[in-house]
């Protein structure tokens, strides 16, 4: 209630200021402040040597990665909308925004709303050069939307729906309503050993390590850079 009142007061003050400005004919200053704010968000990454030490990429690879990164995001940070746009370009037929949102949260490890080059490169380092354990850890982190250490059916349903969204409308066979749910059921059948309705990190890693397919597919993107 008090926050509501505070907000009201603020709004009234702003309106009074606006009226004053209308009468005295000076109606412009707002926009300049906004622009200054925006341009202040720039980011320069740490030095090349530090990044080399922290990740498993070689110097040349880091150079190539940074050039691509900076080309698309000249300001040095990616915010969620740019991230979604970039990711959506790879999936023209469907809607990749939900999955991109989850990905963004997975990459943005310090949860400050933007992905800097360090976050980007750390994430890639795990995904491309990490051990299987680390990769599975990362995947678990991606699925666990609220980061509480458990994957519930709802979280999984969200993730799987977002993956299906990327397929778009024109698929064969036609996507039905219950397909994501069934997929979640299959997943939980596989992963949830003690049938308590949630998947913990140990169950997840355990189960994945026993599954040939998954193990094989984890090695798929070794040579991406």
């Amino acid at each position, binding site marked *: 209630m008090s926050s509501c009142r505070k907000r009201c007061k603020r709004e009234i003050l702003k309106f009074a200021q606006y009226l004053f400005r209308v009468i005295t004919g000076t109606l412009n200053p707002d926009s300049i402040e906004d622009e200054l704010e925006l341009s202040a968000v720039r980011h320069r990454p740490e030095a090349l040597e530090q990044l080399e030490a922290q990740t498993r990429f070689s110097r040349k690879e880091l150079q190539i990665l940074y050039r691509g990164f900076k080309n698309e995001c000249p300001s040095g940070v990616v915010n969620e909308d740019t991230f979604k746009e970039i*990711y959506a370009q790879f999936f*023209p037929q469907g809607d990749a925004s939900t999955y991109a949102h989850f990905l963004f949260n997975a990459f943005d490890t310090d949860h400050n709303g933007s992905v800097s080059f360090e976050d980007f490169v750390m994430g*890639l380092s795990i995904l491309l050069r990490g051990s299987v354990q680390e990769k599975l850890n990362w995947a678990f982190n991606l699925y666990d939307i609220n980061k509480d250490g458990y994957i519930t059916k709802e979280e999984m349903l969200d993730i799987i729906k977002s993956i299906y969204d990327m397929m778009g409308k024109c698929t064969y066979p*036609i996507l039905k309503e219950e397909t994501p749910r069934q997929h979640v*059921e299959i997943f939980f059948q596989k992963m949830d050993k003690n049938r308590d309705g949630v998947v913990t990190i140990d169950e997840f890693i355990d189960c994945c390590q026993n599954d040939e397919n998954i193990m094989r597919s984890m090695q798929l993107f070794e040579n991406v850079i």
Partner: protein
Amino acid sequence: MAAGVAAWLPFARAAAIGWMPVANLPMPVAPSNKNKRQDELIILNVSGRRFQTWRNTLDRYPDTLLGSSEKEFFFNEETREYFFDRDPDVFRSILNFYRTGKLHYPRYECISAYDEELAFFGIIPEIISDCCYEEYKDRKRENTERLMDDLEDNKDSKLPNMTFRETMWRAFENPHTSTMALVFYYVTGFFIALSVITNVVETVPCGYMPNQRDVPCGERYTEAFFCMDTACVMIFTVEYLMRLFAAPSRYRFMRSVMSIIDVVAILPYYIGLVMTNNEDVSGAFVTLRVFRVFRIFKFSRHSQGLRILGYTLKSCASELGFLLFSLTMAIIIFATVMFYAEKGSSSSKFTSIPASFWYTIVTMTTLGYGDMVPKTIAGKIFGSICSLSGVLVIALPVPVIVSNFSRIYHQNQRADKRKAQKVQKARLARMRISKSGSSTAFLHSKRNGLNQSLELTLPYYKMKLSPQGSLEEDQQLKKTTSLLESQHHHLLHCLEKTTNHEFVDERLYEQGYLQTALQNFPSQSPSLSSEEGITGTCCSRRPKKNIQPLNATHTHSHTHNLQELSALHIQCGEQQPLNTSRSSLNLMSDESGSLNCKSSGLVTTAIISIPTPPSNNSRASPDAPSPPNPEAPPLLNPSSTDVVKISAL
């Protein structure tokens, strides 16, 4: 795929690891990049100015000169650089296109020079980015107009073998072509003026008659005026008939504005001739005479400025409409207010709201006749607000109209607008095609069976499945798609595997959608599906190949095998999850997948279909390993016999 985003493809592929634990099918093999070179700088020498860029930058657009192998023709061995004997200034914009993905058009550049350079380097002008596209189109339009004007100036020379009719039409349209035409032009002009003056003078009071009233000249010298009128109408009629005769398309001529004006100008006379001197109709006849004043519009054939004014008004229709609308709104508001303000005062002229309209209009246009004047204080206050706002409301749209007039005066508006519509549509269509190119490219490569050989598991079956010709085809196709494209396709393929659905294009999707609407029967062949799944997954050589062994009817893409009257087939067949892991889960997934399977019992409407060639059927059975379900073979037969089914429409 946009240029800069190609740099993020590794990221997108890495992020695909997030799908892996969720997927139930094995993933396809990643394309190898063993021929990936280290990124190198290449030097482009354009008329002495050296540009340098990464080779990868140029490879982003493989269908242009610089992105393809065409540039090898310009490679200079001694200096190890690519030499182009072209304009270096324009080349800057072109190279920036590769770097940023946006093509800009510099304003100082000549439009035809720019076009030539674009054509040389293989870049279509439609991808000029929105910031510069308007400018580009305007300049291009001006240029084409200038060329067309030059052409038209040469058109006046008389062509040989023109028929009499064509000569006459040319004479009418362009009076400067011959003396005869010029004479005709001036004569008609004179008679138009004469006719208009006659109409005016007819009403002037002309002296006294013995009975006290002033009579207008028309009534005094009736015969004289009648003769004058007849002569003018004679001339106009003859002119109209001659134009009608000479017009290349009589129908179009009759619909044109000028001919309607001609008709309206001479019609009252003839109606007057036909009409008798009845008292009741003569009133109407007098009103018709008003239309004689339309003869003045015939002058627009003689005056370019008048025509342009007409076009201006037509093109500013929206501004004029807005003016009218806002005026109407304001009039109603103020009239209401004034009426109620003046209601109190006695002897007020504001008897009703419509009566106040007159006051409002006169005040807002600042005429101020003074026949209606507010007397109360409130009325005076509102009256002053009314006149102030009137000035504003009328002054606002006028500059727009003025600027429009000047714009039309300098350019021809009509034909260009029509042309621009078409070009805009074409441009958007081209851009849409290039944007959807990535998705269609993926579907295209799928259809070519490129992905068939990229199965992670079961290499044994792979060898059995792919007929002899496919290996060479695959290699050929691998050569044409770039590494970037094949990586992107691999990514999309992984997504298909994860979700166990495949991408199809609109056409096939709509067909499938139609069929689900007709589906009534439950699935009968989960086992068949699982058997089918092992023989070949969704990404088989042709999109619907995997379902053919099951029900032996074709989709409309293979209609050459069927004689059918309508295309409503229901397909059965479902790519099943290729689960080689735990058995219980296998069955479960089959069940779930089979829910999507349409029935093998067909419901068709008036179809006469021929059973499929047996080759497809035979492919399925011997290739399958021991089917997990023993009832697989018998089910094949009913499905093939089910094909021939004719049901009532």
